[in-house]
């Protein structure tokens, strides 16, 4: 029979190890395989998830809370005080064997089928506890990003497909009209013969999937930091970041905030009677309350203030040098890829569209729209190109995301760049800003115009001055890719030692 055990004691220097040795001796004497995780002062090496998955029963010989107890969920568990594990190890082993025999519906053998927590433990083990601070911050971010990517892919591609279909069905205006079909229309009056209704269906599913992007990022950053207790405060904090207009940067902030609040709460010493309800009720409740309150009351106002100030600055500038405005808008579009700064520039452009129909200064508003759209397309396009130019500089999930980024960029979904930026913000964001700034300045200089608020390449027929526009787009894409590749190569050496160290530390 396969057994795993965790031992721990208040001081962590004596009983923890005595109990481990006693259980190992007794287990082997009785002919079982046993592996023990000692959660003592000399540091704990977590049991590999596949060993836990393959175990028939679990023994906790503990006087303090088992760290990361969720890993053992769904297994038959025998829990005894640590002294009992030392003095009666043989009897405890016998109890565990008994518990395994009486367990309902045994899990399929082999490590492939994790119980209870789907993939969670495997991903959490990506974070190495004794790595340096910078490495751990990166690992937390990457955990969040790896859970976010499926939302970006599903949502973004559905939206792009929606635009393509609408374009095919209704011509030029299709990609604009489809966003005007309400979700109620789709739900209540769906017409299976209408191509536009199918497009709207895709659009709303995609948009809904997109709404999970920032909460999932925040939730799983918090998960990486604090394990399962972090998920709720992270998700709620991330959702609030969206509500207050803090975008994906706010989501990262919410993830760290929720994670550390949950971690701090989980490490509180609490009376034994309360311990049982801590992970189920107390930690989610208190951590979510604290994280949500801070996101709303403390962080919400400064973020809104920053957005308002930026908007005011933009309004004051529009009369002066339009090329500079184009560069600034380009920088803003790339800065946070769908976050508040990006949204300020985008809102500035679309707000102008509404006045363009009546005002005589219509040209400027339409140029701004063209500028903003082109500058918002180069970040994903440039990164997609970069993953093709130098695949070795990117991780496997990033390369896969690069394929999706072509479509996302072509559809003016700047968020397609977020997975790259979240994993390596200091190199990726400046690169995106350079490319978008160039594109923005050029489109403004060429004087291309656009009447559609959205749609990417699919609304190309609506663009006035289309050839210079496309030249500016291609130039920005190429520049973005070249700068990303260059910066990634500059920072390559430290990155390599980090990745080389990870498997060692995790083993």
């Amino acid at each position, binding site marked *: 029979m396969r057994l795993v055990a965790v031992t721990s004691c208040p001081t962590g220097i004596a009983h923890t190890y005595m109990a481990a040795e006693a259980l190992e001796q007794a287990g082997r004497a009785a002919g079982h395989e046993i592996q023990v995780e000692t959660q*003592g002062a000399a540091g704990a090496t977590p049991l590999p998830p596949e060993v836990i998955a393959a175990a028939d029963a679990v023994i906790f010989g503990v006087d303090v809370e088992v760290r990361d107890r969720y890993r053992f969920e769904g297994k038959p568990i025998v829990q005894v005080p640590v*002294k009992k594990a030392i003095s009666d190890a043989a009897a405890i082993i016998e109890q565990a064997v008994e518990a395994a025999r009486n367990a309902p519906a045994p899990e399929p053998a082999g490590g492939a089928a994790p119980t209870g927590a789907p993939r969670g433990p495997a991903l959490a083990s990506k974070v190495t506890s004794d790595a340096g601070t910078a490495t751990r911050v990166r690992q937390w971010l990457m955990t969040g990003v790896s859970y976010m990517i499926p939302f970006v892919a599903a949502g973004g591609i559905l939206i792009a497909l929606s635009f393509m279909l609408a374009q095919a069905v209704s011509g030029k205006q299709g990609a604009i009209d489809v966003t005007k079909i309400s979700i109620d229309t789709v739900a209540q009056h769906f017409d299976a013969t209408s191509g536009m209704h199918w497009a709207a269906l895709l659009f709303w599913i995609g948009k809904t999937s997109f709404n999970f992007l920032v909460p999932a990022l925040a939730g799983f950053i918090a998960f990486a930091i604090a394990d399962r207790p972090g998920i709720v405060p992270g998700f709620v904090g991330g959702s609030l970041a969206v509500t207050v207009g803090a975008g994906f940067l706010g989501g990262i902030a919410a993830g760290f905030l929720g994670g550390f609040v949950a971690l701090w709460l989980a490490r509180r010493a609490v009376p034994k009677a309360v311990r049982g309800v801590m992970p189920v009720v107390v930690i989610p409740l208190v951590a979510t309350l604290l994280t949500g309150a801070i996101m709303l009351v403390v962080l919400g106002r400064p973020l809104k203030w920053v957005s308002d100030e930026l908007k005011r600055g933009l309004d004051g500038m529009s009369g002066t040098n339009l090329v500079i405005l184009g560069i600034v808008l380009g920088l803003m579009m790339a800065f946070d890829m769908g976050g508040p700064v990006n949204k300020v520039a985008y809102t500035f452009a679309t707000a102008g569209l509404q006045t363009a129909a009546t005002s005589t200064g219509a040209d400027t508003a339409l140029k701004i729209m063209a500028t903003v759209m082109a500058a918002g397309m180069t970040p994903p396009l440039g990164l997609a190109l970069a993953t093709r130019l130098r695949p070795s500089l990117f991780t496997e999930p990033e390369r896969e995301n690069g394929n999706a980024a072509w479509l996302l960029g072509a559809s003016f979904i700047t968020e397609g760049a977020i997975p790259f930026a979240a994993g390596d913000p200091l190199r990726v964001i400046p690169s995106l800003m350079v490319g978008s700034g160039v594109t923005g300045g050029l489109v403004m200089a060429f004087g291309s115009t656009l009447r559609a608020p959205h749609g990417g390449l699919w609304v190309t027929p609506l663009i006035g001055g289309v050839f210079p526009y496309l030249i500016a787009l291609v130039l920005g894409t190429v520049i973005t890719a070249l700068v990303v590749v260059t910066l990634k190569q500059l920072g390559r050496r430290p990155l390599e030692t980090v990745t080389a160290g990870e498997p060692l530390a995790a083993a």
Partner: protein
Amino acid sequence: MTALILNDLVLLDLDADDRTEVTRRLAERLAAAGRVTDLDGFLADVRAREEQMPTGLPGGIGIPHARSAFVTAPTLGFARVPKGVDWGAEDGPATLVFLIAAPEGGGSEHLTILAALARRLIHASFRDALMAAPDEAAVVAVITREVTP
């Protein structure tokens, strides 16, 4: 790395009335050897652990221990108490006492020596060898030989 145990940290044929006295006699040796900087402070830390739950274990052993800011290096003090003192174990008094002193801070790697010591305590052969050791040097030899991180 400093040695886990020295001849001066071994007390054979100790005559003491209770576990407080045994602990103090051992701790005095640790202080004399420079392993403990504040005798009373260290004893208070050991007592705090002992009050949570006595550290006596079946087989006649007591393992008073603490992580303490007054400890300079991982150190073991060992005493044989032939008449035995009550250490809270169910099966009777302790005749072998291991005072384990761990420094409060510092990296975890040098605590692995104490983890290895704790694992050896389980083995009857280790306890028998200590019981049979003719003098302090023999005790130190047994422990140094058997306890390797």
